[in-house]
């Protein structure tokens, strides 16, 4: 199953993002950002199921909580950066 990781600058930001998603019925889990995806050092991300990606992007945009970056994680565990503009 495809998952998406919304990379956040801090645990608080990730929690705010997760709460905003929860309010729209999207299950979101706050977790550490995999080391290979970090740029500035330690951070947290919000993991969401792939099927909710489109509505999740709308929800966090409406909440004013844009993620620093977004990655898709395939079933084999590999990451690919996701761009909304693709």
């Amino acid at each position, binding site marked *: 199953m495809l998952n998406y990781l919304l990379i956040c*600058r*801090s*645990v*608080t*930001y990730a*929690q*705010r993002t997760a*709460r905003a998603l929860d309010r729209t019925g999207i299950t979101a889990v*706050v*977790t*550490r950002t995999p080391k290979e995806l970090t*740029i*500035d*050092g*330690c*951070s*947290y991300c919000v993991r969401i199921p792939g099927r909710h990606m489109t509505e999740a992007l709308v929800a966090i945009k409406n909440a004013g909580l844009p993620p620093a970056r977004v990655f898709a994680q395939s079933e084999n565990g590999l990451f690919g950066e996701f761009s909304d503009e693709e």
Partner: protein
Amino acid sequence: MKNNVYLDNAATTLIKPRAVAAAMKNAVGTLASPGRGGHAASMRAAEIAFDCRELAAQLFNVSDPSNVIFTSNATHGLNIAVKALAKRGSRVLVSGYEHNSVMRPLRAAGAELIIARSELFEPESAVFEFERRLDAGGIDLVVTTAMSNVFGFILPVERVAALCRERGVPLIIDASQSAGSLPLDFDALGADFIAMPGHKGLYGPQGTGLLLCRDYTDGIIQGGSGSNSLSDTMPDFLPDGLEAGTHNMPGIAGLREGLKFVLSRGVAQIGAHAARLISIARRELASVPGVTVFGSDRAQGGVLSFTLENLGCEDIAERLNERGIAVRAGLHCAPEAHRTAGTISRGTVRASVSAFNTERDIAKLISVVKRLQKF
């Protein structure tokens, strides 16, 4: 000597909701460092910390819980605020009722202090003085307490905040005595910082405080934040920028329960209860010959100062303590307030109430003071 009647709540609320101690006990051994790991104990701590921020944001109408900063007490928060906004030579306008937690950091920063000294229990007088000083120009910052810790005088912070907003002058509010018993709307006030203890009217444990702030990230200590760890400087976002080092998780867990208590009982009800008890104490003590009471039927919160003609304030406090009543005597770390009220030479005895005090507590205080004044 056990204090059966605790009336020193302006220093710290000794009696807390039971859930506070239970949460603290539970935190030790179950809550690790929030924002520092991905394991269950760290994530559990992060949930508790975030929930505490959200409760505070709800109580004080802060639109973004990231702007709720954990501090170790109100003094800590006031130091952050003062050092962010007051520089050497800054002209800072303060009320005549400020605590040393405001005055000392301002003096240490090298600020020039202008005191808007006003009549006790006269909000109009305070507004007039603030407006007059602001209109004279050259004010870089305003700092005011929301309630005097000595006299319980409720300052008109909404109107002072409006004066500051109209003139574009930054504002710091010391809500040490008012938080939890008077309404406080951070977004509506537009203050740059509001500092408060967690261990007074919010019924959290000692060692906790909250600082509500705009997007200032220039703190007074630097260190690990769990974010931007490759950077040599603190993160430029909140709350991380102002929260270096490991959090006081037992304290935050306890504060969370205190906030729940305040939200469930309601600020208006807590404030009304305090005002009613103080009103009884004021009326009864004023009827005792030789007792001077500093009070008013308006603009007074849960704090009352008084003196006795025939006994010094420290003696009164000592004798009350001998009879199981805890009050505080002296200058209460607020000499400026005593200068304003004309009580600097003798000090006062201060009785201060919480949601857990009863009319019976007040009756005992009055009864003992009456006996003291007789001899």
